[in-house]
């Protein structure tokens, strides 16, 4: 190990490193380290959300970035929380399934309500990830075609095959929004 590295590393760790980010409107700050309530560099965002912040709605299925179950919205984009290091979330704004309800009235998000109305789930395990993916997508593209919705959800694993009902649920939100717009 060269002297250079020691200098650099010492410089960085001497001042305790903190990571702060906002989840569902609430700011959280963690100290980096390996103690019980600290954030280890190896922690994924899905782990921190579930095990530290107690937000169990974010489901981990494959834990390898291939199924979309753990999707959350980060700075407006649907991302896989199992493939994000918590230590790299400094300054980010994150929304999880728990953050979709209207904070004042408690009303469900229209996508959530539409999933209920269309029974767009069976076992429900992949549902939070699907709703978050759809939410980020509709935020960006409020009037998509059915094909675009399918494309947006193409990274979300559902084994019960609720796909057809999910598509109807999301399309129904799109149609309703369209009516309001007119």
């Amino acid at each position, binding site marked *: 190990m060269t002297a250079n590295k020691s200098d650099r590393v010492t410089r960085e760790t001497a001042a305790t490193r903190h990571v702060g980010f906002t989840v569902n409107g609430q700011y959280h700050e963690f100290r980096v380290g390996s103690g019980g309530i600290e954030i280890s560099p*190896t922690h994924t965002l899905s782990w921190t959300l579930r095990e530290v912040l107690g937000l*169990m709605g*974010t489901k981990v299925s494959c834990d390898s970035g291939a199924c979309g179950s753990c999707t959350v919205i980060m700075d407006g984009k649907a991302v896989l929380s199992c493939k994000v290091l918590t230590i790299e979330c400094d300054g980010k704004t994150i929304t999880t399934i728990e953050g979709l309800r209207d904070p004042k009235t408690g009303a469900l998000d229209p996508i959530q309500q539409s*999933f209920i109305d269309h029974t767009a789930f069976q076992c*429900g*395990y992949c549902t939070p990830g699907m709703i978050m993916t759809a939410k980020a997508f509709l935020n960006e593209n409020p009037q998509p075609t059915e094909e675009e919705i399918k494309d947006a959800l193409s990274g979300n*694993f559902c084994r*019960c095959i609720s796909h057809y009902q999910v598509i109807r649920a999301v399309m129904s939100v799109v149609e309703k929004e369209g009516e309001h717009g007119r």
Partner: protein
Amino acid sequence: MGDDYRFIGKATQRRDAVEIVTGTALYLDDLRFQNLLHGKVLRSPHAHALIKKIDKSKAEALPGVKAVLTWQDIPDWKGGTPRKLRVLDKKVRYVGDAVALVAASTEEIAREALDLIEVEYQVLPAVLDMDSALKHGAPLIYDEFPGNIIPGGTIAFGPNCLKGVVMGDVEKGFAEADVIAEGTFGYENIPNALPPEPVGAVAMWEEPNKVTLWSTSQAPYMDKGTLFHVFNRQVEIRCIGNHVGGSFGTKIMCWQVQAYAVLLSRATGKPVKVMFTKEEHMAAFTLRIGSRIHARVGMKKDGTLTAIHGTWYVDSGYYSFTTQAQVAVGSGELMIMAQCPNWDLKNIIVATNRNASGSTRGFGGQELKCSFIPILSLAMEKAALDPFEVLKKNYVKPGGGYFWRDGNWYQYRGIDYSAAMDKGAEQFGWKEKWKGWLTPTAVNGTKRLGIGVGVHGNADVGEDSAEAYVQLDCNGTATIFLCAAEHGTGQKSNYAKLVAEVLQIPLDRISMTPADSLITPFEFGPVGSRGTYAIGSAVINAAEDVKRRLFEFVAPKLGAEPQDLETVDGVVFVKGYPEKSLKWRALGYDRTLLGHGRFEPDFTVCNCMMSFVEVEVDTETGKVTLLRVVLATDVGQIIDPQGLEGQLNGALGSAGIDSAIFEETILNHSTGHILNANLMDYKWRTFTELPAMEHVVLETPMPTHRFHAVGVGEVATSPGPSAVLMAVSNAVGSWLHEYPVTPDRVLRAIGKVGYSARGGKK
């Protein structure tokens, strides 16, 4: 069509809908426990080896490690059928077999401890497929199973458990046949039903001999029974079910992960959670059974079957838990779809050094049909018969019969499914599309279209006993005591609908207990499409029983006879005299009424599912695209239309139709490793590639159910794969013999690729 019910058949919100869409539905891994320890499993790198030595001292010395268990540290707990497989053994039998268990204060420490366990193996030669396992002098996986043949029959189905089908005189039958076809087909891609939630368990041991288990299983009472025997009938077990993130029949196989958690909790005195990772789920938990059949089929020119003779080879992997049961049920299911007077269908259950097969949606019948229907097709091809007509003709009709799992003959007393099949064929346009065997429906340049049809049904709809209680409260509410965990079918909501219909109270007045074996009476578990008839009937009977008690209590106060009373919305009144009424409140605040319902097994009815598929084959690349699926069934009475739709759409996933198209577990035949134990390399259907999906659902009242319904959830998957094989073979003009029909196999079938060492046996 069905009666006009207040709740049944209406679209209603799932009871757990808000929890599911808000992320508050609690699955096993979401539960919190005080002082919880985390368990991890050290797994074998060898397909077959003896453990010569294990040194766990370094692992035990790691701070945070609370227990390290090897085969030397545990009681002689065994599972399997027959019960020969130790929970941890001195022998490992597949790549991924459990070698040691660790409990530690965090998952990270537990994982680190695994690396510190030193194991010395004596590697043994392995048998990775049926051919090598059955070879003379092949290495034995168990000393108790000579020739690597696992004994047939399971005591769970009684002393005469169905072990094959022998009846009539097959030689006479072949003599009467106009055509005889013979062939070998395999469904050996051991696909994985692969629910999104991995399997796991949390155990809390209490000295000296009690344990409470929370697990991912949908059938807590079945687990209680299974584990009772595994733990040598010495442990008092309480099983609690939660939300289950999908099962597709597999999660009744959780006994090993449950035993790991129990052993670690017993060793530490703390609650221990063992949650499999996805790769453990895929490489060390249940696969579908491997199935290959060599058979002869005799048929008359009009499609009448005269004889079926053959051997069904069943690859169970390194042990069997439910395989014999699947063989029994699968054999009976074949009789349901192939009514024939002369049978000699034997089977051999083979142990191989790969991850185990076991219970999966389709439970033996799907695996057998995927191999058998192609041989039946060879006969139809010889006789130039339309497969739709032949399958319809030979499906069991009232008055027909079959042997079922207990070895007894049952005369069928259900409905004739021909009407549903006809309607399905009409919707699909079968008559217009069918151009004859090995003939495409249409050719567009390099693309060829082909169609196929399959059928399946089972008499498991009335299998096993079920019990439930329904309790009435004076405030007009009811509580259902039932050991059913919600695993996605929506059945818990349906049970509330059934009770609401019987008691005529709104759905929101009905509560349900958790699925907790300490609280509820016996219930076998939601398997085999039995949820509607078996479990549903127990719930209905409990509701009827408590209603009777209510009427008996109220009748004297109204000066009427109990049989003259009715109740609606918590008010009891005399029929025809609504003014002569009393509210349930008349029970008094200090009284509840409890009704008990029981269902006795009934194998005299079965369900039916026919699948029609249309595929497009790209003859340049060999790629098969599923264009359209029509499912035809008759459910007697729809309970919940949206739930039914979901269950039927499930035909694609959970190792259904897609097991013919791209799903397979890829076992490396040189080493025994499963190479695609991840959701990237294991192929699953995505949103962008959905076929047109249509359902034809008739409602011909079933005589056996209070509301005339029969369950079809399980069977949606089963007729699909063989229909795809038929469709692709028709499209390309020659028979494909193996699943799935991936580009390499299609290109080989059309002669564009020569030799291929891939999978499959000719």
